[in-house]
């Protein structure tokens, strides 16, 4: 279902999303970055926020694509139906919506061409075969984009998880340090 997670250790970023550095040892991490605990936590929290913003954007794109794909499939269905009718010589009678809640009846004669709405107020006439090919290509592109998007989201969520765990560990390390210091302090007092 997914690529092995060990490859993400060597990836420093993916399509503009920075990878979260995995911390082997909290003490070494803090001395390497030269940050004190609070600064480190603040930095990690900010990273987390940035990840969340990107996640929202990707989720919105995913929703758009997921709506687009059934639309294209419906169009392919219609063209295929027209194709099937071709041999019979009958016209296709269909009820369609001309305005909200108002329907009208159309008689679609046997025809070799269909018009496709390309967006931006542009509609072009295509032969049935060309239309099917174009719609098919759009469908494949949409599905491929969706796959890439899903992989992006998985990568992003992994980085979020790593950052959350790092925050917890830095915090725990701090609590642990304070306890050690307190123990030393009380020992020297007594």
């Amino acid at each position, binding site marked *: *279902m*997914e690529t092995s*997670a*060990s490859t*993400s*250790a060597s990836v420093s970023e993916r399509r503009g999303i920075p990878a979260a550095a*995995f911390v*082997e040892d909290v003490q070494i991490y803090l001395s390497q970055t030269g940050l004190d605990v609070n600064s480190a936590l603040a930095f990690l929290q900010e990273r987390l926020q940035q990840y969340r913003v990107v996640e929202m954007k990707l989720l919105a794109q995913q929703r758009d694509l997921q709506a687009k794909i059934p639309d294209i499939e*419906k*169009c392919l*269905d*219609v063209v295929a*139906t027209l194709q099937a009718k071709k041999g019979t010589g009958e016209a*296709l*009678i*269909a*009820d*369609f*919506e001309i305005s909200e809640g108002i*329907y009208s009846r*159309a008689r679609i004669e046997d025809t070799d061409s269909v018009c496709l709405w390309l967006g931006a107020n542009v509609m072009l006439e295509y032969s049935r075969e060309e239309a099917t090919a174009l719609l098919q290509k759009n469908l494949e592109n949409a599905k491929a984009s969706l796959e890439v998007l899903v992989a992006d989201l*998985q990568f992003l*969520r*992994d980085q979020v*998880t*790593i950052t*959350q*765990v790092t925050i*917890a*560990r830095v*915090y*725990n*390390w701090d*609590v*642990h340090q304070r*306890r050690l210091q307190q123990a030393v302090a009380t020992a020297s007092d007594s």
Partner: protein
Amino acid sequence: MQQSGASGSEMEVTWEDQQNINKFGRLNNRLHELEDEIKIAKESNENFEDASNELILTDEEMVRFQIGEVFAHVPKDEVENRIEQMKEVTEKNLEKLIEEKESILSQMAELKKILYGKFKDSINLEED
């Protein structure tokens, strides 16, 4: 799913642990998506059932069948066939989804054993 260590202990987390946690997170997300998809597939199946039943009851020869955005006038027999086909496709899809869900649940159970084994109380892998 949360990971929170309230005990303040110096817990060592290896890269392998982190990968297991990441994988658990991914599986959990996929599980939620699957549950939604399964719900939609089941509703679709119900709709097809209802449609078939209505078809049997109606005595009209021509049925208005939705193709794309329009309702085409299609003979009853053809509509029956189409609905049968659509039902088959949805049922197969539903089977696949349920299989995937079972596989994910067992993988998650495995990971829970491993992670709870190492981290015990320091980690919480339950749904809140």
